[in-house]
């Protein structure tokens, strides 16, 4: 179970690190290399984004990665195969992140069954709110997989609680308004928001959107259980290459 795995890791580390990649960007081979490098550097969990042509919640960097991956011809079947490969090869939990249409067109039940067979632990679908998620939720439950839901600073108290009822594994707290990749202010209002999230759910909390360096992660220690690095890793790959990821990720955790 994802939650118990997270809890046992948290006995060894103050805060876990989750990274995000877009499968097929810059290529499938490079994606594998990126996963290998990230796992070797001590990443605790990984989100594997299956690219979608309309990623409305993603900022320019991840949007471009989605488009490049699709332009390179990456298919959903290849992404599922990729997930199977890395889940077999590496000992950390992997999650899919994608938009609902990918599951919908594939067939939600079929997608979730294959996700289980491939050894993934759950998925994050940012445009699938609980209201629309009945079929997805029952498929996930049947397969004992974790549907990761999202909290945002604009989510009302009542809604935080309602989301907690269907969430599993952990809850992904979006740090601020906006899309992925923009600056986030790690400030007191973030503290207060995380405290609200804590009250609403007993599940571990991940914090993402704008986490980029060691000081951000230090700030989150004791407030969140998982820090999520997305855009920043992609930027590094683009500017300095995959090899630079190892030192970057190691440094974040010291």
């Amino acid at each position, binding site marked *: 179970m994802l939650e118990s795995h997270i809890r046992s890791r948290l006995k060894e580390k103050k805060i876990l690190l989750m990274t995000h990649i877009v499968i097929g960007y810059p290529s499938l081979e490079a994606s594998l290399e990126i996963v290998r490098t990230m796992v070797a550097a001590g990443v605790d969990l990984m989100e594997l984004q299956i690219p979608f*042509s309309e990623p*409305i919640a993603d900022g320019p960097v991840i949007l471009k990665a989605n488009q490049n991956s699709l332009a390179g011809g990456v298919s959903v079947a290849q992404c599922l195969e990729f997930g199977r490969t890395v889940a077999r090869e590496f000992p950390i939990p992997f999650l899919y992140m994608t*938009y609902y249409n*990918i599951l919908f067109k594939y067939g939600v039940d079929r997608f979730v069954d294959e996700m289980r067979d491939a050894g993934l632990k759950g998925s994050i679908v940012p445009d699938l*709110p609980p209201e629309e998620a009945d079929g997805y939720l029952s498929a996930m439950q049947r397969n004992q997989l974790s549907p990761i839901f999202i909290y*945002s600073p604009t*989510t009302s108290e009542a809604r935080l609680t309602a989301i907690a009822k269907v969430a599993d594994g952990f809850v992904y707290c979006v740090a601020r*308004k*906006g*899309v992925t990749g923009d600056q986030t202010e790690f400030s007191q209002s973030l503290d207060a928001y995380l405290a609200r999230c804590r009250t609403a759910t007993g599940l571990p909390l991940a914090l993402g959107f704008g986490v980029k360096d060691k000081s951000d992660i230090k700030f989150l220690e004791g407030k969140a259980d998982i820090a999520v690095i997305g855009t920043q890793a992609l930027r590094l790959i683009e500017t300095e290459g995959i090899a630079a990821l190892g030192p970057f990720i190691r440094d974040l955790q010291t």
Partner: protein
Amino acid sequence: MNKRGYFGNFGGAFLPEILVATFDELERVYTEARNDPIFWHDYEQLMSSYSCRPTPITYAENLTRHFGGARIFIKREDLNHTGAHKANNVMGQGLLVKRMGKTRVIAETGAGQHGVATATMAARFGFDCTIYMGEVDVARQRPNVFWMEQLGATVVPVTDGTRILKDAINEAFRDWVTNMDATHYVLGTACGPHPFPEMVAWFQSIIGKEARRQFMEREGRLPTRVFACVGGGSNAMGIFSGFFDDDVELVGVEAAGRGLNSGAHASRLCSDDASVGVAQGYKTYFLQDDDGQMRETHSIAAGLDYVGVSPILSDFKEKGRVRFEGATDREVIEAVRLTMRKEGVIPALESAHAFARAFKEAPTMSPDDIILINQSGRGDKDIFTIADAMDDPKWKQFIIEKAKQYHA
């Protein structure tokens, strides 16, 4: 937690969590307005004093004689302020923005008509205004870009994806999730997450309400068939809504582009190329591949060049209440030419899809039948595209001279 905003199997609100509170607010304000008779009254007043409502219906006597079948009437949405039905929706949403106390509006635009209408509304109400427009559309609808900027709006060319309407919508959503406190997204058609389809269709229903009344007054009866072009579906929903409960045949005309078998079209409801999916916040028919990736679309009319379609129309398609047909780029240009020559009326390329299909069917109908075509907009904005298609030598010479002047 209940699902909201469904029309049969279509619609819904597939929203990123950050926008849920914003949509709750919008739905509340819209529902209040809808239940407040004074709101609709104010809206009609505004549209009659600022736009040109009621727009007339014009009997197209020469076209009728030319085709020798059904009598043809045109509902003149081109006479709206800014030249298209888009004004109806935009002014309605502007009133809601005032109610919400927001100070900035954003919008997507394809043909530019919705952008111009939004920029106009923003100027009148005193809102800041940013318009997202695909780079391809910026290039083919330059006159409208010019007007938006002159009206005080910032036009942002979108360089992602296919660089047309759907990509402009994505960018507008990205702006909105960052700035929703003071910003309202004036979505331009009856698509997107609930309550947009229902709300936009409601504002546009002013077209159908008027048309119905005008026919009863003038002819003492209703038309036999009503034709409207379908991009997102807002002008179609608008005119159709006057006749849903009547024995009137409703025909939605999509962009068949280079042909329904060419792969280069934007026909979601009259072709076999589309399938049901979920994107841009709602469930409907999309032109997508087997993996669920949206495909490139094509139409000579920027305003019809969209991968999705109103969930309300998808439902009517499944229920058989509306018939969907396509018109090709070539048929559309021919329809523009004929309408100009016979009636002295210049329909927008979008609207001309409805004309093209009506012209096909008119001769097969009897003189007792009445066709009503919704002329959703006027064609001035399309001067570059139409001149190209007609290969007009004098126009080309003019452009060359003008370019020379700018180079000098």
